[in-house]
């Protein structure tokens, strides 16, 4: 099936005007599949880390949200150990007016503002609630170990 014009336009724009700290490169053999890297936001436990993600645009994109998953191990209450992300705009709050770049920015913001009240990784959320400083230190350590640039 031919690639919709919107996907082509979005890809071109991502290449022409990249967002700072975010890159998304489509696979040559499948233009719906993107390799994404997101830099950890400043003044967060993930600062200095570079996180790899995979992004896939389903056939009925943009009517359905893109499928995104962390490939790099990350200690975050809203990201489980399989890398799945708990983010409202990736589920029920998706709107076809959103784009790849806005979604990636939302994920970057999620790294800077973890939300343990709506957890996906329950054990992480639990620790985050009990001892936030220890959890943040663990997150730093994981970032140093797994998210090397």
């Amino acid at each position, binding site marked *: *099936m031919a690639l919709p*014009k*919107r996907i082509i*336009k979005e890809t071109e724009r991502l290449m022409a005007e990249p967002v700072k700290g975010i890159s998304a490169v489509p696979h040559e053999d499948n233009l719906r599949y993107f390799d994404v890297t997101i830099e950890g936001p400043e003044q967060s436990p993930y600062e200095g880390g570079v996180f790899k993600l995979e992004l896939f645009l389903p056939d*009925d994109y943009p*009517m*359905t949200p893109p499928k995104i998953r962390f490939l790099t191990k990350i200690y975050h209450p809203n990201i489980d150990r399989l890398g799945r992300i708990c983010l409202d705009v990736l589920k029920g709050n998706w709107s*076809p*007016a959103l784009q790849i770049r806005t979604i990636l920015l939302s994920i970057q913001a999620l790294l800077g503002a973890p939300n343990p009240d709506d957890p996906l990784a329950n054990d992480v959320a639990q620790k985050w609630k009990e001892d936030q400083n220890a959890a943040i230190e663990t997150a730093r350590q994981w970032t140093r170990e797994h998210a090397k640039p």
Partner: protein
Amino acid sequence: MESPPFSLEPPPLVPRRESGAGLPDPLSATAGEAVLNPDSRRNSFSVGRPPNSPSPLALMATGSPPARPQRYKVQPPDLASLDYIDTPAPQLICGICQSPYVLPVRLPCDHYFCKDCLSHHFATQDAGNKSCPMCRGKLDINQESLEVPKIMQDMLDALRVRCPNTRFGCSWEDERGNVRTHVMIYCKHSLVECPVAGCDLYCTQTDYGKGCLHYTVQCEKCQGSIYQSDVEILFLDMKKHMDSDCPNTVAACQGNIVGCKVAEIRKDVVAHERTCPMALMAPYFREQQTRLGLAEARIGPLERKVGLLERGLDSITYKLYPAKSRRGTLENLYSEDTTSVPSDSIPEFRLPDPSFPQWGSNDRATAPPPFDSQIDHLLTLHESLREEVSRIKMELNESEGRTNMLVFNENARIRDDMLHMSGALNNVRAQVHWMMSEKLRPSASSGGSTAAADSNKAASSNGNTRSGTQGASHSMAARTAAARLPPRRLSDSTRQETKL
């Protein structure tokens, strides 16, 4: 099918499809559904020519649709997939499809979307839970859609687009508002239903008379099938395949414009081009060639200009020096035949400067000086020559006059001398005559004594050759003769005087 304007129905061999069966309404066509869906097309492809396909000749002979262009149905253009020439203003871009609005719809929250985009969005939402994609505001699906401002529609229609059939060879470009008219009526590359029964596919109007082209073809060289799901014109594709893709077609090395002779099948050529220095330089040489072509194209007008200037120079030279006009032209200046030049000129230029032929041959062999100075040089040469010649002529005249005067003077002197001499002679004669008449007068009175004296004088004047005896006898005879003819002696004596 529209109401048939002609009674002649298409031949049974080529029955047209029932109207509406294969033709979706414009809206569903723009949504990319139904017949134009490439996946459904692919399944219906058969290898080789369909058995019931008539030849193009048969189609034409039976007066089938190509003779009546109005009979076939053109697919309406899909406005959502148009190619825009300029980047449209972001205010005209639909938030869902990221393209300029097609049939925009205005929501109560004042957000706009394409009609199709919005209906697709609503289809994914629950019935009582519709929301605006932009602001997520709740929407009542039963509410009347609001009126879209006319200015927005006008701005959308004014966007410049390319013909959707550009890939089939159409080069039309105009405002979006005209694209439907162009595609439906004027564009020769629009897709129409395949004329052959049983074929659900579409071909371009230009290929309509060629029968069914919807079968896969295999490349003879590489055995690869060149069928592509979204391309209808297979023949055109085949040519493109042979020209640029097929690895087994014979192709020439890129460097052939600078003399690389390699021409093998493409995959070998590609390997060769990596090492061929000429192929590496080929882009540079191609650029040079185009520049050379441009330069050559510019030489033509310049040559004409030079010709005009030459003629102008010619006429100017002719006006200045009518006699030298032939020498003034550049051709004559540069011609090797320098000897013919003086012969053409008037006689006063007959004397060539000794250095001139040498200058002509030597300077031409090396580098000729700028022609301005050459002409100047020649002209001054001529001037000096002309002065020289006229000076010589004057000197000649002068010397001629001088010699004439000399001769005349000499002649006059000699004539004077001769006059003087003849005067002296006359004087002498007059004296002699007087003396003779003095002598004759006494002899006339005395008789023979004067005659004897006269005869004596005559004898002495005759030259003393005679002997004394002879003279004695003669004097006797002369004395008698003188006595007889006395007047005659006068004339004789004058004659004797002139003899002296």
